[in-house]
């Protein structure tokens, strides 16, 4: 018995595996979110933010996928197309993400110049002394 047939005997497992793209999204999202919250280093926070945003890109892209669909180009012999709109939308969001990261990195450089550290706690500490 091959794997696919074995899995089909367990409906819960099928529904779990059938949505594996969404599970990937959730795992990435939570990983990124956790890094943003838990890490003290401002650079690592930005990387976490990036992972967090990337998970949303995946969410959008997998939304547009149509099973058995081709790329949305008109051609004879193909009638099922993937939805191109989510990919186009997410292209915009990717650009936004890059802009956010670059502004964030620029800020970290300035913070390093001004404080000599990129640890959030150290930065706060250095401001407490008047």
């Amino acid at each position, binding site marked *: 018995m091959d794997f696919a047939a074995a899995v089909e005997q367990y409906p819960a497992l099928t529904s779990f595996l059938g949505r594996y793209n969404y599970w990937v999204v959730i795992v990435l999202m939570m990983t990124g979110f956790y890094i943003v919250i838990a890490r003290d280093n401002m650079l690592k926070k930005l990387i976490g933010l990036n992972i967090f945003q990337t998970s949303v890109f995946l969410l959008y892209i997998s939304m547009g996928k149509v099973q058995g669909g081709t790329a949305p180009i008109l051609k004879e012999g193909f009638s099922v197309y993937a939805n191109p709109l989510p990919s186009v939308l997410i292209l915009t969001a990717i650009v936004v993400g890059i802009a*956010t990261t670059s502004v964030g990195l620029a800020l970290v450089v300035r913070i390093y110049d001004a404080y000599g550290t990129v640890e959030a706690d150290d930065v706060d500490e250095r401001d407490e002394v008047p």
Partner: protein
Amino acid sequence: MIRDNLPALQIVVPLVTAPLLILLRRRGLVTAFVLLATWITFGISLALLHQVLTDGPFAYALGGWAAPWGIEYRVDLLSGFVLVLVSGIGAFVCTYSPLSVALEVPYRTYGSFYAMFMLCLTGLLGITITGDMFNVFVFLEVSALSSYVLISMGSDRRALPAAYRYLIMGTIGATFILIGVGLLYMMTGTLNMADMAGRLDSVEHTRTVIAAFGFLTVGIALKMALFPLHLWLPNAYAYSPSVVSAFIAATSTKVSVYLLIRVFLTVFGVEYAFRDMPLVYVVMPLALIGIVSGSLVAVFQNNVKRMLAYSSIAQVGYMVLGISMASVTGLTGGIVHLFNHGLMKGALFLAMGAIFYRAGSVHIDDLKGIGKRMPVTTAVFVVGGLGLIGVPLTVGFISKWYLVSAALQQGLWWVALIILFSSLLALIYVWRVVEVAYFEAPPEGREAVDEVPLSMLVPMSALAAATVVFGINTEFTAGVARAAAEMLLGVGG
């Protein structure tokens, strides 16, 4: 021709001005262009509001692509009203700004500073005018990215971590909104708000839509600094350049409140947002905690800009409280307070900017005796402060009147008490400044400071005067707000 394309011009004018400003190297030219562009933008928004008031709401298909496929700009009473607020504050702040910016921002970044300012204005106007959910996200990021840069230009080094923190929290908020929009698109197959509202009825109880509702609520709450998601706000307002504090405090959170109203009432509908979802039990308590804690913390601040920032958190609480009561009176109160608070906080932060321009500090100890040295500036602060307290004949009274009567209508007498209690706290923190400014002698050994030049006095006095004018003659503000509330709740007109 121009009249037909006004909705597009509302966005295009500031958007096109931004890159021009970087190319223009001369300060005088930059200033002239900024003033021209912001006043034209203000004029356009007035024309749009006038058009809505005479002909009713209208839509504009961007690039000639019909909705729901193309991006649609939609101007109704609410968005017209908020457009006037945002572009008006933009115009007044810009008129005030050149001297203050020249002092606080390095010479070589003068042009790029204003370019960022125009982009921020573009983004805020865009969020307000668009009728497309994804377009909201794009404009949100345009305004957010430029405001991170603007805040980081503050002369205090603490502006940098403040901008960084805002960047992190703002991006999380925007990404949450993006997730919410994606989930809604998944279920409805459309991004146009009006179209989406129609198609949501059949799927509104699926888990996906409920999740989308949650993501959108939290994302927007982050953006508007609703308690307990307000942590980015105090430092961002306190350490950014004076002009930026005034502009962002008066417009940015207001536009987020607008977005909340738009998403709750236009897209999801009042039935869904307030009857089916347990929103009232979540948002109203948070708004009330925000009102009390914001005012309470403000009392203990020694940096006056920081104090005003905490007061802003309380004021956002008022607006959300008004919305969460989901009655015509409550929503009117929320919308009218959105407008009034923009005027008040604009005037207050501009007054602080003027004091910083002369005295070089906004610490409460450095304000001793400032009332005699800078009588007009201090008077502007007092008028704005009276508005925050809610004294009759100022705009603050009008909004609180609506909020209290909405609370009493629903038998929520304790909510009314909390509003009054918070007003007392506002009295304390405004009084602290007034006492220092008028009743204490200026510290010895310090240079005497003079009143600021006329170019700063006039815009700031105009805003302060507006808070009194709209406090006495409420026909325009409260009238439009009530009509907008009735339209949103689907009653009356």
